[in-house]
């Protein structure tokens, strides 16, 4: 009896999830009347706007990841090693981006860092790009910090640091060659999630007026019929790939941990 109910709940739920995926795939393939074709994909992929915005977002994602790692790994390490009393506060701050809607944060950016302010970041394209990258970094902060902090939990930070220091290692050496390799799996999990977030982000990029993939998708959606579905399939594939890579990385580390 319980089993019937369980199957029922699961199957009804799965139908809800599968139908939109089928719908978007079917729609993306039906640009040519009467038969399935990859025309919508061909149109999208050969669109110079697509190529420009897609590569812009990929580059932004990579910069965000590098910045996030440089910010989060030393901080999480330092909190574990020397400032455990600060942990609740740091954790609270890293969770704030989940509380404050992104649209509010970017609203503040526009008012605080506009051309007539003390730090006129939106005055130049480069400045705005950096501001957008900072915005992405705050969006990914909760995930990045939690991933790295969980990774550090499995490492004896104090002993490793003392061993390295007694061999004459500098702080940079300790972080780059001892701590980072030990939490690499966690860092990669955070990085892939950051990548997925940045690739799909719309609000910040649109309000800062940067040519990112999210605003491009929205614009295409307002003007075309079949191409948006092709974009949705591509975006879904990116999300799947990122999540798959996270699973792979986690499984891989579990495997090596078990051996040692």
């Amino acid at each position, binding site marked *: 009896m*319980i*089993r019937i*109910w*369980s199957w029922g*709940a*699961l199957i009804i*739920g799965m139908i*809800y*999830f599968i*139908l*939109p*995926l*089928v*719908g*978007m795939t*079917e*729609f*993306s393939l039906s640009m040519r009347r009467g038969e399935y074709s990859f025309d919508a994909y061909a149109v999208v992929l050969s669109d110079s706007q697509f190529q420009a915005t897609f590569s812009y977002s990929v580059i932004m994602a990579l910069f965000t990841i590098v910045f996030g790692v440089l910010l989060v790994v030393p*901080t999480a390490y*330092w909190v574990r090693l*020397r*400032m455990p009393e600060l942990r609740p506060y*740091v954790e609270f*701050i*890293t969770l*704030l981006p989940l*509380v*404050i*809607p992104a*649209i*509010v*944060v970017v*609203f*503040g950016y526009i*008012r*605080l860092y506009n051309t007539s302010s003390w730090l006129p970041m939106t005055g130049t394209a480069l400045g705005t790009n950096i501001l957008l990258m*900072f915005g992405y970094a*705050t969006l990914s*902060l909760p995930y990045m910090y939690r991933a790295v902090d969980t990774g550090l939990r499995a490492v004896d930070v104090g002993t490793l640091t*003392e061993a390295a220091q*007694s061999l004459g290692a500098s702080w940079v050496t300790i972080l780059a060659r001892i701590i980072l390799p030990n939490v690499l799996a966690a860092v990669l999990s955070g990085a892939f*999630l950051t990548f997925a*977030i940045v690739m*799909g*982000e*719309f*609000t910040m990029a649109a*309000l800062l007026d940067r040519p990112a993939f*999210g605003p491009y*998708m*929205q614009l295409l*959606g*307002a003007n075309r*019929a079949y191409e*948006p*579905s092709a974009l*949705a399939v591509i*975006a*879904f594939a990116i*999300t799947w790939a990122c999540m798959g890579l996270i699973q792979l990385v986690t499984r891989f580390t579990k495997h090596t941990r078990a051996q040692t």
Partner: protein
Amino acid sequence: MAGMTSLRRFAPLRWLGMVPFFAFTFLFLILPTLYIVFGAFRTPQGAFTFDNILALNTPSIRSAYWVSIKVSFMSALLGCLIGFAMAAAVTVGRLPRGVRNPLVTFSGVASNFAGVPLAFAFIATIGPAGLITAYLRTEWGINLRLLGFNLLSTKGLILTYLFFQIPLMILIITPALDGLKREWREAAAILGASGFQYWRSVALPILFPSILGTLALLFANAFGAVATAIALTGPSLNIAPILLYAQIRGDVLGSPNLGYALAFGMIVITGLANTVYIWLRARSERWLK
């Protein structure tokens, strides 16, 4: 340990390691938010005032908040119910073991598949020319539009938001369901409780803080969502995030400080929901650890 104590003596050095983090989060997270919050209580000339907050009380802004709250609450409630049913099915529902991991993995993907592409997927499926809409019309003669269903409405928004709400519920509640000890069920059974009684008097009271807390989290999650709503309905639907978006783009309210007040209202609502979530999570950890 000698190195540690010698470093401890230089307390400022310890703090030096935290400077990048605090500087960054202060400048690009806290200060922008505070700027909005203070702006909500200031006149354009900079004097303190409650007028902006009071000016929110217009029919159009009130309805924007109200529709937002309704959509967020309904999608959170349905997401909780359906997500709980699915999570219960794969944890305590005696399904084959192989079902569970794929569902959790899929939930991880689906909870991150939000924003613009999600709206496209639903437009392609159940929009005016979508797969299901066309199928029902040609094969069954059912016109969804005549039946009162329109994807580009609050109902459509709720239906679409469920795509990331349900998976989030599954991800959060599955560990809680795992925390139900088998001894509790056995103890209840020995005392003569039926399955229903066990759920009503033991399992649900233990899970209740988790479920309610997740409801608050899902509510905040939907409340701040901008991209899905804009891609789905364009600027036509009057909900708080879309109104704020239009205000930032083109000052549709005609007063920058009223815009701050609108944003401040959103922070208050998501802040309250998250406080409820954190408080209830702490409570639920008493039993489920």
